[in-house]
């Protein structure tokens, strides 16, 4: 097994090739994506830590089982985000836990608001943060996920197309509609 330094220099695709024959290499891939995917799941599902860990484990197992399906013409990150997104949506449907306590980090809110909507400064202030959280939470999942990908995960359109498996036009419409809805939600709350 190569040491830590060697594996950090390897690309995702190289690690996938190695992991197909040795699960230890898959551990490096998991380490690389563990934190990113934890945030992503939390941002689109609002699940608590324990649930997120369960989803993440299911995602990693699924990714490992399907390593031979991965086509390197696609970015590995897009592929793993797609599997994560699908698994999270399955769990949301199963558990019907849309109304869980919002578990977005504070800096997420600021980023979300500043990047996605042209709102008044007061919406990003700390005392009004709770209401802002509520506005984001009430966004339907289909809008929330595109906005999370664009403004929090900072994915470009090509990556979003590969993750969501939706055409560019549809994604652009969802983002635009999501912004409008968020603004409406905020206006109603203040």
């Amino acid at each position, binding site marked *: 097994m190569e040491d830590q330094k060697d594996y950090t220099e390897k690309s995702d695709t190289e690690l996938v090739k190695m992991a*197909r024959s040795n*699960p*230890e290499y*898959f*551990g490096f891939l*998991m*380490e690389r994506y*563990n934190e990113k995917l934890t945030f992503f799941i939390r941002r689109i599902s609002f699940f608590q*830590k324990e649930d997120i*860990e369960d989803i*993440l*484990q299911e995602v*990693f*197992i699924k990714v*490992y*089982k*399907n*390593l*031979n*399906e991965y*086509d390197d*013409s696609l970015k590995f990150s897009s592929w793993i985000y797609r599997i994560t997104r699908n698994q999270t949506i399955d769990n949301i449907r199963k558990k019907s836990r849309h109304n869980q306590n919002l578990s977005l980090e504070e800096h997420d809110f600021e980023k979300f608001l500043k990047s996605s909507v042209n709102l008044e400064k007061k919406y990003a202030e700390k005392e009004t943060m709770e209401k802002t959280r509520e506005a984001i939470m009430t966004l339907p999942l289909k809008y929330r996920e595109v906005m999370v990908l664009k403004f929090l995960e900072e994915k470009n359109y090509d990556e979003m*197309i*590969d993750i969501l*498996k*939706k*055409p560019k*036009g549809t994604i652009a419409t969802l983002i635009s509609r999501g912004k409008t809805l968020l603004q409406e939600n905020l206006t109603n709350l203040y």
Partner: protein
Amino acid sequence: MKDVIKETLEKIKKEEIKPISRWFFLAKNMFTWLTFLCLVVLGIISFSLILFLVSQLDWEICSQMGIKLHWLSPVFYIPLLWLILSIFFALLAFWEIRKTKKGYRYNSAVIVLILATIFSVFGFFFYFSKESERVHHVFSGQSVPYKKMSELKERQWSQPELGFLGGIILQIGDKNSQFKLLDFEEHSWVINYDDNLVVMPGALLLPNEKIKILGQKIETENEKTEESLFQAREIRPWEGRGPESRNCPGCEK
């Protein structure tokens, strides 16, 4: 707090989880493309059958035959059935291409345009190569309801009082101006014609040929011969009306 990475690795080893074989994914991908191909072929056949059936209609004499032309006219039942099936196969093909590995990347309008082009080009090819006619006869032979619906044309050409008679030529008379015909109700007719007879290309005055005749019933049934007399003005091939007309006397029989 659990260590997801450590636990996942342990689970993989403990349960001896292995990556699914690449052959499985290859087969799955091929199956999707094969399904797509089958749906496209079915769509092409359906489209070519619409062309064939519509070309069979004698548009210019529909009103004389007492047929009111609108979308739900009985003459359109079978073409409409094939139209619905064409759209159904096109939708399934669209859905199937979206299921392929990179299908989601294609623009919907481009997929629709490509499918429409394939259906049209190959549909016309099938129609002109007479494959659609062959498929139509296969369906007529296999399905009783389909055959019944197709016989609408037979009924339309069984109206001698209105001047429309169809059937199979039994024999060509000795004289150059007469032949015998068996209509769809198994009734014999003696068909007279003169120098003004118009025979559409494709209509052959030969025994066992199925034809359509425009003309006039000139005599009721002869009790002795049990045959009726019909004066023919125009003869058309059973399938379609033929691209151009020509006068009969002197034409090939």
